[in-house]
Each structure stands twice: as C-alpha cells, then as structure tokens.
C-alpha cells in the first residue's frame, strides 16, 4: 500500500551502488522531483536503467552532470553530450539496448519470466555475448530480464491506494518499470480519493507502488 511522502523521504533508502529505473522518454514522463532529490542526496555509483539519458541540466541528465553514475542501460544517449565521452573513457559503463528489447526486458522481470526470444538485433552488435536460438528457421536472441532496486515513476494521477493513471505519451516506460523494482516511488501531479478513478481506468495497480510523492508540493517545499 502506497505511503504518501516527500521526494526527500522517498529516496532515503537509496544508497551507493544501487540500481534505479527511471521512467520517461526524452524527459516526457520523467519524475523530475525524484531525480532532483537523488541529486540533492548526492548518492553515487548508481546503475540507471532508462529509455534515454536526458539532457544537460534536465531529468536523468542531471545524474550524469553530478557524476553519480557507474553504469547505464539505455537505448539512446544522444541528448547529453557527456555520455559519449564517458563511454570512451570508461568512466561510466554504457550498455546500449534496442528500445523494444529494453522495454521487454523490464516487462519480463516484472512478469516473472526467465527471458524471451526477440528477432531484434540478430546480426548486429546487439547480439554480442547473447545466446541465439532458432525456432522454425528464424533466429532469435535470448534476452534476459532486467530488474532494479528502485523504480522512479511519473504518473498523472494517483488515488490514495496508489492506483495510477498516465497521460498521453508520458506513459512510456513508467507502467512496466513499476512492476520490476523492489521499491517503487511514483511522482504524481495529483492525488485523489479512492473511488475517483474507475477500476477499468487504472493503468498501474496500487499494489505496485510503495511511495507516492506529489510533484508540485515537492517543488514548493524542498527547493
């Protein structure tokens, strides 16, 4: 059952070397307040799993700006110039994953699957070090699940049970990440009473959410 708290309280248990999934696609649907709280906390050597690595001074990019990262699983680092340099210098280990594979790996972790077979990446560098399995004459890569210690989720609305609703393409990686981490923290635009969201319209069941943070309150209070 979700506990309503501030971003600062929500990130309290995150310590050096942990893995954090962060929702969002080019900063749409990224929980800015939670990332900022992680920057303020100053915890380092994190592993981040995210669609992309954001921009300089914005969203996930801030974690790179403050040198808090050891490893990143992502499909795109093009928005933040420091990443290529870090990849070359080895300062941050960047594991590039095709976007659909990344999404499916996260889903697989949340769904208790041991892996899945995808045709994506066969014959490319994405196949390196992976097992190939042929089914009915088509070759697939065996991809393994990807989970994390913590997930940072951004939703539009939550009820006090933690049921979440997303808006437009701010949904992206958020619902699957909510299923694949030990601790799930959701930053939302508004928290409404139970009964406001029809059961049919819930996009992430409240059972997945451990902490609920109201983005606007956070911005008002902590900065």
């Amino acid at each position: 059952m979700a506990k309503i708290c501030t971003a600062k309280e929500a990130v309290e248990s995150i310590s050096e070397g942990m893995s954090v999934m962060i929702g969002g696609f080019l900063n749409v649907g990224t929980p800015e307040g939670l990332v900022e709280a992680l920057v303020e906390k100053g915890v380092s050597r994190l592993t981040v799993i995210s669609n992309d690595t954001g921009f300089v001074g914005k969203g996930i990019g801030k974690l790179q700006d403050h040198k808090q990262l050891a490893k990143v699983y992502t499909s795109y680092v093009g928005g933040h110039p420091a990443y290529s340099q870090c990849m070359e210098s080895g300062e941050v280990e960047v594991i590039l994953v095709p976007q659909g594979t990344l999404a499916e790996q996260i889903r697989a972790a949340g769904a208790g699957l041991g892996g899945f077979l995808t045709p994506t990446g066969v014959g490319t560098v994405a196949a390196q070090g992976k097992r190939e399995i042929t089914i009915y004459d088509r070759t697939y890569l065996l991809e393994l699940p990807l989970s994390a210690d913590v997930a940072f989720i951004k939703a539009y609305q939550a009820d006090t049970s933690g049921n979440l609703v997303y808006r437009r393409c701010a949904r992206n990686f958020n619902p699957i990440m909510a299923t694949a981490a030990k601790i799930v923290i959701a930053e939302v635009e508004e928290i409404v009473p139970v009964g406001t969201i029809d059961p049919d319209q819930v996009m992430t069941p409240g059972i997945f959410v451990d902490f609920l943070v109201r983005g606007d309150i956070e911005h008002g209070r902590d900065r």
Partner: protein
Amino acid sequence: MAEIDKRVRVARRVAQELKNGEVVNLGIGLPTLVANYLPQGVSIILHSENGFLGIGSEPESGKEDKDLINAGGKPASILANGCCFDSATSFAIIRGGHVDTTVLGALEVDQKGNLANWMVPGKKVTGMGGAMDLVTGAKKVIIAMEHVNKDGSPKIVKECTMPLTAKEEVDLIITDMAVIAVHSDGLYLLEIGEDITVEQVISCTDAKLILPTGHIPIFGEEGSKER
C-alpha cells in the same frame, strides 16, 4: 538540384508507396516530410514509438501539450481516433508486424538489404533507440535518403562497413536519383529520377544494380503537390 528539392522529391516518391489505412512509422528528418505528400484519398495512421498511434499536425506555438512529443522529441498532437500505450506495447506493435511500413534514413545500405543507420565508427555514439526494432519488425522497410554522401561517395554499397541496424530487412530504397527494390538475388533498379540517367545512377552506386530489360520509368514529375 537544390538540397531541399532533392528531399522533397524523395518524400513525394515515398508517399506514393503508402496505401490508404496503413500504419506507418516515419523516422526523424527526411522521412517525416513524407506525411506532407500523401496522394489524394490516401490517409495513413502514424505510429510514434514513444507510445501512441494517430500523430496529428504540429501544434501551434503556445498550444503544446507537455505530455505529447513525437519520437524525435518535438511537440506533437494526437488525432481524435488516436490512442496511447506504454513502451512494451508500442514495441509489441512494431515487432509483432502491426506496423505496415517504416521509413528511415540510412548511412549505408547494401545489396543484401543490410542497413547501417545508427552509428558511425569513430564518431560520437548516440544509440540505436527504436531503429533496430522498427527495421526488424515492420512489414515493409523503405529507406529514404539522398543517393550519395556529401562528398559524393555512394551510400548503396556491396557490403555495409558500419555497424548494422538490422540484417537483410530493407525492401525498397528511394533516393533523389532512383527507386531500387531489394530482392534475395540483388538490387533491382525500378525507376530513375527526372533528369537522371541510368549511367549516373550506376556510377553513384557501389553495389551492382540489376537493370530492367525495357524502358525505365521516370519519377519526380508526377506525384501529388504538397498539401
């Protein structure tokens, strides 16, 4: 021909490949232009891999929705019959063959239909994003690009030298100079651009082209005007 005209010629020709009701994913850059040149009576459904179907027109300045961008990060709108979904579903749609056509640019395409479009060795790495899934999963893969690099070197080669996006998945190559189909036995030159000769296409192409026996159609004259 001016750069802009070349791009328009390619976009217009690609648009003619799209059928009414098709689900289409257009890559960043030149492919995005294709939506502006659809023939009369052809309406397509645009898929955006960041999680929606039914991309509408670019929103007016000041009317952007903070939760709506296209896969290139630009403000976007969604049509009334559109729908939103998470990234796992978005790529299930792509990989499951529910996108009829994807249109992308290329750094290199070779005669086996191999495509390299995500990484130039020695240059800054940006990542493959959703390109590998799109090229592998879409029913039809159309490469839309200028025929040669800025230095005049061919982009259609015998064998890709850059890291691949996907193996043997390209179906059709449309450039400012030619329309080329990729078959298992090689590249078939189907059409040439207005004011282009077959000899020019051959000299600007590193891969072997299989030529038609009779008259070769010319494209670039007809096609619908920009709407």
